[in-house]
């Protein structure tokens, strides 16, 4: 296990250039460039606000802020996973010709999405400040929540990226699964509006705890559920180990499968 970290440390420059390339490449050929990383979530929030607040009459107060706190962390989650499913196939050419620790690829996807999320947090802050809620002291827990989400994503992306080399269908399945999970996570609605007999779904969904934590920090401005987050971090760490074991087993066949 120590070897894994040593290897990653030796290749840190590759990780760095990869993350930079991912971030830079994302908006390279678009007219509005980096502006899209702000415009995209804003437009999405607008769509949900129109549908759920104006048409469906959701009684939630400050609905746009409410949505914003859930949607932006969710975008981090979903784009990291869906991009992990493509990364091996996209980089097939290099994988077949050069050796480097293959786990660099999913890790750099998750890391670059985390950086994107950090930038997008400006939107959340802008919403709560200009929406009149202000910033609470609970924002100190932001790094802890981010860490929990990061580790969770590393675990998932190790598994998703390696399996998708063998089963290309996964790329399509993941799109559907993420959509399902979107509605199984309290993003457009609040968890307490869900009937008691469906609550178990939310309880089993790790993203519930993460979204709730961001919402506690920014929207309701109450204490975040630290024990729940610590448990989530512990589970994610176990997930990372399992994910790595699966990844390591499967990566031996990458060059032949691609």
């Amino acid at each position, binding site marked *: 296990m120590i070897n894994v970290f040593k290897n990653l440390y030796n290749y840190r420059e590759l990780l760095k250039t990869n993350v930079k390339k991912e971030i830079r490449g994302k908006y390279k050929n678009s007219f509005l460039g980096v502006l899209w990383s702000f415009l995209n979530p804003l437009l999405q929030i607008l769509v949900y606000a129109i549908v759920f607040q104006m048409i469906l009459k959701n009684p939630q107060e400050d609905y746009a802020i409410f949505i914003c706190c859930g949607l932006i962390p969710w975008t981090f989650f979903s784009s990291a996973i869906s991009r992990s499913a493509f990364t091996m196939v996209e980089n097939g050419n290099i994988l077949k010709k050069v*050796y480097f620790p293959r786990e660099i690829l999913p890790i750099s996807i998750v890391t670059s999405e985390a950086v994107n999320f950090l930038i997008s947090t400006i939107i959340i802050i802008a919403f709560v400040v200009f929406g009149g809620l202000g910033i609470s002291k609970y924002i100190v827990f932001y790094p802890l929540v981010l860490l929990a989400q990061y580790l969770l994503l590393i675990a998932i992306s190790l598994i998703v990226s390696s399996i998708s080399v063998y089963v290309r269908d996964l790329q399509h399945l993941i799109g559907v699964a993420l959509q399902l999970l979107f509605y199984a996570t309290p993003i457009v609605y609040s968890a307490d509006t869900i009937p008691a007999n469906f609550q178990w779904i939310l309880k089993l969904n790790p993203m519930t705890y993460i979204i709730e934590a961001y919402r506690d920090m920014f929207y309701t401005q109450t204490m975040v559920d630290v024990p729940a987050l610590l448990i989530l971090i512990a589970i994610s760490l176990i997930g990372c180990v399992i994910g790595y074991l699966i990844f390591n087993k499967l990566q031996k066949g990458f060059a032949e499968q691609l």
Partner: protein
Amino acid sequence: MSKEYKIIVDDVYKTFNVYLDKANTIKEKLLFLFSRNKKEKREVLKGINLKVKKGEVVALIGTNGSGKSTLLKLMTKIIYPNKGKITTEGKLTSLLELGAGFHPDFSGRENIYFNASIFGLTKKEIDKRLDDIIEFSELGPYIDNPVRTYSSGMYMRLAFSVAINVDADILLIDEILSVGDEHFQNKCYEKMRDLKSQGKTMVFVTHSMQTVKQLCDRAVWLCDGTIKMDGPTEEVVDEYIKETK
């Protein structure tokens, strides 16, 4: 592993599954369960044993399809053996294909950073070598042009300059020196002799017997996935030429 050997190949077998029609989707995989006849097994390496000492320069020779490149890929850990074990010691760089990982839109200079980082160098280490790499490539003012504007010779020169300056303990080289003019080729051989005198270990795959005789102390003749002959360059090469005539 004893310090004496840099590469130990221990009874290695490698079989490739050749799918005539590959099942990539779940549907196809399920269907293939019932009709398994579309898979062919191709045994490429059958029990290879090879030990390379520190500072040795070894050539792998043999006809096309004898398993030379496969053996090289196994040593780099791009693919893994079905049976047997390969251990290498120290930093290993392989040149299976020049310029793998070059990004055509970035400049030559940026690509040096990117390519060298794939070989596991840190920013500081690349900074230190940057001038050497640019000088060796003889690209001069073109180094800041995007790589897509390069001729194939320039491309190859840049790629080779990066790889040769990585400072690896073991260098694995697949038939790649066929590009480039005579002047650059000679320069490469010069550099390799230089590396050899520094005690670096090298394994070559080549069809040029002249190169083999010039550079290598030892030649290994692969034939149909087994080692047919292993010994001093002159002997093996002479025998090989006699056989393939």
